[in-house]
Each structure stands twice: as structure tokens, then as C-alpha cells.
């Protein structure tokens, strides 16, 4: 518990001091938590291009997003024309969708949480889940060294017995130099790989060094994937409260 209070301090430290912490200072929990919060921060705003490739179709959707902490997020579609104006609002564990064509706001019930978000390989549940990697998982460093000529840490995350997560385990590979994640792998309890998330195209954006291309590939259908490319991400802005409200959803 006390660690979390130190976290903002630690985050600042990480960003301001490019010098990597020495091996003895590594706290797996903090690193993972940092990874988790990489694309969030206290608040953020940006544009994303999401491409989804499935067996049957391929499409690309342009979106604008706003987020505050882990609690609130608003996503609005900007392209293609047919879906322009469609928006998703998440507040806590509730999700609403605004459908521009019919000018209606509907609440997404828990029974639909398993279905895909906007047709992608992410689920509504992925969106809703408060990032609780540090509280839900036992984190340990499993490897530190070179992979493909890059100095990395690899972590193994195993959920606590009472954690409400479907995965059996997760593994993370993170660059030692700047603690940018390279990939995350999700396994079921039998150790079978279920999906892989990769983080590429690291750039400076909004004052941070972040991976701007995130790709999610399901293990049972590796030709399929969902890819998010971040354009123009800003962090820690003053976002007006009204943004995360149902009325704002419709604009």
C-alpha cells in the first residue's frame, strides 16, 4: 500500500533521470506498474488509428481519446464517415456507447462485457478493467540480460488465487534502458499462450518516450490482429470535468 504513495514520485524520477537504476534497486512491482500506466498518466488526450484484421475483413478506424486516471475514458470515432461521431464513455466500471447515426446513448450491460470493443480483439472488459496488475498479480523478475542485442528485463506475473482475472500467467519483456515494454504475453492456466501484445515504434510524444504502435495478436488466429497507432498524444492536461459525462458524449 505504501508503495503506491511513493509511485508518482518514482515515476517522476524515472522520467527525469535517464540513468537506469542499478540492478539492486529493481522493484518488479514498480516497473510493471509503470508499464501499466505508461499510456495513462493522470490524464491524457490523443488521436489513435486502429486497424483490425480478421479472416473476413480489414478496417481502419480513426479515434480521438481522452482519459483521466484509470477511472475515466472517452473515445470518439473520427473516421470512417459511416461511423463518425460514435463514442464510448467509461466511468468506473460502467460503459456507455453513443451512436451518432441514430442519435442514441445506450448503456452496455455486464453481459456484453465479453464482446469485442468496436470490432477489435480487445474486449469491453479490457477497457473496463482498472489496471490492477500490481494488486492482482505476484510479480517476479525472471530474466535480466540480453535478448536480440537489447538489454532487457523479463517479468513473470502470476495472479493471486482470489484475483478476478481469467489469465493463468503473464510475461512481460521490458527494455532495461528506459523501461519501455517490448511485449506482453497472456497465458491460460495450462501454460498455453492465448494472446500477445507488442509495443513498437518508440517515440517522444507529449513529453514522454512511449511505444506508439501497440499490436494485439490472438494465439489461435495469428493472421488476425488489432493494431493501435498513437498519433499526437498529450499528457497531464487540465481536462474539464464535463468531458466524462453523458451529455458530452453526444457532441
Amino acid at each position, binding site marked *: 500500500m505504501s508503495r503506491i504513495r511513493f509511485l508518482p514520485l518514482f515515476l517522476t524520477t524515472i522520467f527525469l533521470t535517464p540513468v537506469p537504476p542499478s540492478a539492486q534497486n529493481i522493484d518488479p512491482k514498480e516497473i510493471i506498474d509503470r508499464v501499466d500506466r505508461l499510456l495513462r498518466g493522470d490524464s491524457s488526450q490523443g488521436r489513435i488509428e486502429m486497424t*483490425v484484421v*480478421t479472416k*473476413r*475483413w*480489414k*478496417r481502419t478506424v480513426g479515434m480521438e481519446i481522452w482519459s483521466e486516471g484509470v477511472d475515466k475514458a472517452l473515445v470518439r470515432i473520427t473516421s*470512417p464517415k*459511416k*461511423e463518425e461521431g*460514435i463514442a464510448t464513455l467509461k466511468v468506473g466500471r460502467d460503459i456507455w*456507447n453513443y*451512436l451518432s*447515426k*441514430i442519435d*442514441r*446513448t*445506450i*448503456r*452496455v*450491460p455486464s*453481459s*456484453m462485457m465479453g*464482446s*469485442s470493443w*468496436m*470490432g477489435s480483439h480487445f474486449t469491453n472488459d479490457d477497457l473496463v478493467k482498472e489496471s490492477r496488475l500490481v494488486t492482482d498479480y505476484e510479480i517476479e523478475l525472471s530474466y535480466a540480460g540480453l535478448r536480440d542485442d537489447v538489454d532487457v528485463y523479463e517479468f513473470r506475473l502470476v495472479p493471486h488465487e482470489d484475483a478476478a482475472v481469467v489469465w493463468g500467467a503473464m510475461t512481460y519483456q521490458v527494455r532495461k534502458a528506459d523501461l519501455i515494454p517490448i511485449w506482453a504475453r497472456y497465458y491460460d492456466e495450462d501454460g498455453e499462450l492465448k494472446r500477445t501484445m507488442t509495443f513498437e515504434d518508440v517515440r517522444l510524444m507529449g513529453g514522454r518516450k512511449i511505444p506508439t504502435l501497440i499490436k494485439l495478436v490472438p494465439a489461435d488466429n495469428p493472421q488476425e490482429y488489432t493494431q493501435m497507432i498513437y498519433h499526437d498524444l498529450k499528457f497531464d492536461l487540465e481536462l474539464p470535468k464535463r468531458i466524462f459525462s453523458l451529455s458530452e458524449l453526444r457532441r
Partner: protein
Amino acid sequence: MLFVLLGWRNLWRKPGRSAISIAAIASGLFFLILLLGISVGLKEQMLSNGTSLLQGHLQVHHRDYLPDRGLYDLIGGDQDALELEALIETLEAQPQFEAVAPRLYGFSLISTGEQSAGAQLLGIDPRLESRVTSFLEGMVAGKSLTPVAQGQVLLGATLAKELRASTGDEIAAVTQAADGSLGNELYQVAGILKTGLSHLDRVLAVIHYRDLQQLLVLRSWAVHELALRIERPELADSVADELNQSGLLPVDSLAQGWGELAPQLRDYVGLIDSFYGFLIGFISFFAALGVLNTMLMAVFERTQEFGMVGALGMTPLQILVTVLVETLVLVSLGIGLGLLISFLVMQPLSAHGIDLSRWTGGLTMLNTRIDPVIRFGWAGKHLVWSVIGMVAAALLASLIPARRIARMDPVVALRGVVEGSG
């Protein structure tokens, strides 16, 4: 044949007794036919309720469609085209099909805004659907000539309650379309459906199939299923086989009868079928008892007579045959009479049936307006087996006195009555 003439004359020597025997056989057959008739009627009603409510007697799908019901497994999907109207017309033109209805399925979120729920969307052609199935009659609210026009939706009763939606309300449907985009549309609730099947009432939302095609971004020929009605539902499986061989369907399609689609129903029906054999057997036995009694008397009061013909040269076999033929004549007359009465009585019973509402009161099973009328059914197969059963039982029964008298030494027979008849 001489034997037949003999038999005939012998029968009428005791007209009273013969008349009673014939009446017994006739009534036995008559009631047997009635009992079979009502069993058939009950079975057909059960079948009807089970299949014509929503399923139809036969269904046609893409080969891979069941059991997972994949969105992309459309009829004709392999060729990426289908002459839908032409196919429906061709099928309807076939004499064995009474009606054909196309269906499209999708899963979506439907919502009144604050209340949302997952629903199974069923796209139908309202003009054609009620010619094949009867679930639309279960509409408990809303009324219109076309049950659901474009832009409208019918909600299952439990679903409507969950959404707190009623007729006239507007609901939004959101789904993932076939091209991956987010399909969404508004529909007006035109009615509430009560099928009586709770797993349907909880998720079913019925819209016009053209609406669903648009929502799912599918082309105008896209359907998942064709439901067909035939005249004799018990033949569905063989009709389906014929259809598959006929070449009328697209190459990737498969027709299946209700027996394959709902094996539990088939098993229950099979149960009732096996009951028939038992019934025929039992009643034949009953009738045979009567025949046995009659023939025992008829034979043994003429013991001396048989003794005489035996002494005069008739072989035991011929004596046996005499008795059997006499029985046959008796039974034939009985069966003839029985058939006549049966035909007369079954006509109104199979046309109008018996109204059970005196015993059962009003019923709300399966939809709100069910008439508990059982129509009696005629089955040629039953008739043949009933007649065969009774004749066989009667002949077997008459073997008892026949053999006894045939074996008897004519001298002994000549001497007098073996069994008192008075």
C-alpha cells in the same frame, strides 16, 4: 370355394350367436381404430406444437451453419450469390412443400437507453413466415396486418420486461456487422411475442429480414435458413433426403427434417408409436377371446356332425380347414362391419376433432389462444396392422377347437356331445 360356402351356411345356423360374435369383432376393430386415431391425433398435435411453432418441418442451411450458427455461413455463401426469390418460388412450386420462409440471424445489443440487453435477432419475411410457422400468433400486444414491417421489431415477452419496453417504444440495436463496422439502427416496438418457451421469450427480437441485412451489412440475397412446411410432418426426414438429392438447392446447402434437428422430439414421438403395437396386440387378443368362445361352441355342438363327415371320408386336415374358414368368414364379416362403422364415425372426428375444453378449460400453452381440440388421425399402416392382428389372433384362437375336433376319432365324435352347451 366349397369351404367358404359351408362356413357361411354354418354361421347362419345360429344367427343370434353369429350376430353377437360379429358385433364383438366389429366393435373391437372400431374401438381399436378410435384409440389409434386419438393417439395419432395427440402425437400429431405434439409434433405440430413442437415444430410448427418456430422451427418448421424442415430447414435448409449452409452445410457448416449448424451448430455454431456462424454469421458468414449463408445459404449459397460459397458461391457468394443466391437467387433467393427464384429458389423460394421453385421450392413452393414443388407439390410436397406447402410453404417456404427465409430467415436471417444475428446477435446484438438492444437498448431503450438506460436498459440494455443482449438479444437474438431473427429476420423474417412477414408475408411468408406465418405460412410456415405459428409463433407470430402468440403476439400478445400490438396488432397490424403485417406483423412486422420494416423499421419495426417484435420483442419476446421476458426481454421486453427486462428492457421495460412496450409497444410504441423505440429501441436501438447495435451489433458488429459483417464488414466489421458497428451496425446500429432504431426500431419501433410493434408488438410483444409470447412463445411460451422461456429460452426464446428471454432473447428473441424479430425484425424484417431486409432490415437485418442492412444492419449486418449483408447483401439482399443473404439468408441463413429456409424453413419449410409439408403436408405430412412425419415424413419430414425422407422429404429432406429427397430435397438434398434433387439438385434444387445450392451445392453447399443441406436440408434436414425436424427429426434430425430436434432428436428429443423424435424420441418422444417414437415412444408414442411403440404404444400402437401394444394397443393392437391387446385388442386383438380381446377379440380373439370372443372368437375362441364362439368357435368352441360352434364346433362342439356339432361334434356328431363332424364325426359323420369324418367317417364319410373327410380328412382331419380338411376338418381343420373347415373350422378355420368358418372363423375367417366370421371375422371378415366382423371386420367389414367394423370398417364401415369406423369410416362413418372417423369422418367427422378427423375433420373436426374432439374439443377438450370441457375437461381442460382454457389453455395458455405455447401461445395465448390454443384450442384443445384433438383431431383424430387415420393411418393406413395402422389399419392394415389392426386387421392383420385381429385376423391372425382369431385364426390362432380357433386353432384350439379346430385341432381338437380334427384329432378326434370320428367314432368317438359320432357318439355324442363332448361339451355341454346348455
